[in-house]
């Protein structure tokens, strides 16, 4: 009976941690062209040399990317943001709260995407590890 109870406890722990991991998830970096950043990525973080700006409401027209500096009430998260990398720094123009940068000066655009295979794989690995530790040292 006591063994069954211990097993139940162990399984509860494993399930809780696996669920936690599944929610947290494993992310991998996806590179795309700047015009293909998914629409749900509301925040655009613009990097140039050692500087960066968090922006929202970005749009591209006539080869120029325009964005509003500041994230407003949106909290920056991996799943709602994308990053662009600009060179040289002088290509970034700031006018009040508006930032502009020529698209040709954007060398890279990427965002973190949930990697289901990794998330499930690592979640399962952790569940296995935890279960092993519980069995091993109980």
């Amino acid at each position, binding site marked *: 009976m006591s*063994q069954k109870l211990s097993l139940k406890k162990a399984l509860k722990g494993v399930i809780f941690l696996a669920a936690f991991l599944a929610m947290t998830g494993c992310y991998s970096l996806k590179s795309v062209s700047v015009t293909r950043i998914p629409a749900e990525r509301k925040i655009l973080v613009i*990097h140039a*040399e050692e500087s960066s700006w968090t922006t929202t409401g970005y749009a591209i027209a006539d080869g120029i990317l325009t964005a509003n500096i500041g994230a407003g009430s949106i909290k920056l998260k991996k799943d709602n943001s994308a990053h662009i*990398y600009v*060179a040289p720094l002088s290509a970034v123009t700031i006018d009040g709260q508006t930032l502009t940068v020529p698209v040709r*000066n954007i060398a*890279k655009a990427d965002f973190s995407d949930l990697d289901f295979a990794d998330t499930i794989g690592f979640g399962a690995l952790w569940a*296995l590890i935890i279960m092993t530790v519980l069995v091993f040292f109980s």
Partner: protein
Amino acid sequence: MRKFNTIQQITAVVLSVLILIQFSGCRTLTGISRTEIPYSERTNFYIHRSDTSFHITNTYLADGFYSGIVTPAPEKPGKGDVMHIYVAPDSAIIAVGNKISIPVANVAKAEIFKVEAGRTITAVAGAAAGAFWTYIIIVLITKGISCPYVYSESAADITLEGELYSGATATPIERDDYITLKAISPVDNQYKIRITNEVQEIQNTNLAELLVFDHPADAEIVVDKYGVAHSMTDIRQPLSATNAYGESILAELTDYDSKRHISEIRDDALLMDTISLSFDRPANSDRAKLVISGKNTMWLDYMFAQLSDMFGNKYDEWVKIRNRRSREDLLQWSLDQGIPLAVWLETNTGLRFVDYYNVPGPARDKKDVLHFDLSGVSGDKVNVKLVSGILFWELDFAGMDFTADREMAKSVVSVEYAADETGKEVTPLLRADDDMYLVQPLINNEARLTFKTPPAVPGTGRTVVLHSKGNYEPIRTATGKPDMKLLVSMRQPGMFTGFAKNHFLKYYANRKTSEKAH
């Protein structure tokens, strides 16, 4: 305790190997600042522009420019050697011949693969955990149906000695068992052993006592299945030893070593493995002690489990029926299927069945002896045949001793104290052959037993033997309807043996077909 140490050792080894294998680790892309680029110790640089990329080597930094030679990209560069450099605008890249230069100011991002500690540790620990569970599953599968394990203690170690009352899978065939505790030595003037359940069985131990023999130092003592101790002082190796197909297996049976005899299996009608042994017979010898060392195969365990599972949802009923059958019936069935190792003696009037060795189980080799008279045997040779079902036994040694048993002192030592894994005393359950049993129904049930050490007799050698008695019931979880026609046929002699052989041939044939297909 001992088994966890073993598992820990295995896990540690696996972990160490995996750490070596994983030396390069799980790598993910990480951005680095431009000032770190010259110090990155990378050899393969990929320069990315909007529509293409170049692989460059021999890079250097001078006058605010990164420069390098365009070379063909290697097929599979090591991730640890690679750096990606993203440049904008495209026009910033200056190409002269196969040389490329990029102003540092136009490098928008540089990325390298870095070992991600979390992932690496997870992967390694996960792999180790996987190995651990694989080991456990293999152990559980291969142990299948076994019997209680006995461990002996010494000041330095705890050693698995073997299994108790193997094959006593029903109450009518509860039996005495005698196992030599080769690694035992007194701890605090006590002999200590452990009896554990490590498989899905209900194990019922009726009696556990030590037989302590003080004997001439040059003699080896082996207790036969009847509880009679025999001294061995001149074990002779066989002159010849052949398998069922007449092939010599002398090398396999002449020493206690890694060379062993396991049945040869052919696609023919043969169901029994017959080992023919011939020994030189000393003049005037009228009795012989046939000594073997070996164990059962995991295959026998596995096939008995298969048979049990064929009863499906009627398994419990089958267990009850077996428990109501007579001891003689059950033993005869076992012999008819070649489960014990039968001994036949060549006499003047033909082969004579002598006796059989009880199954020792698959965990450890057991040295066993049968003592028989040689009446009806003339000539200077003794020829015997060892017969068992194909693939049911594996033998390491066979020899014959014709010497008379020597004088020895025997002490029977009752258990002084025994407690189960919860600390509850179970001593009275093990002291006598009665109707009180130590019942171990769960995996990891463990009883620790202590015995007073009898005073040693100076100038003698000592052999400690555990005498136990009990039975066990394998627990199976098979479902579905039983194939009664097939199961009823299993009552016929050799049917189980044939079933096991056919199963092996079917599996083997399938594997060969599959290998060919690949």
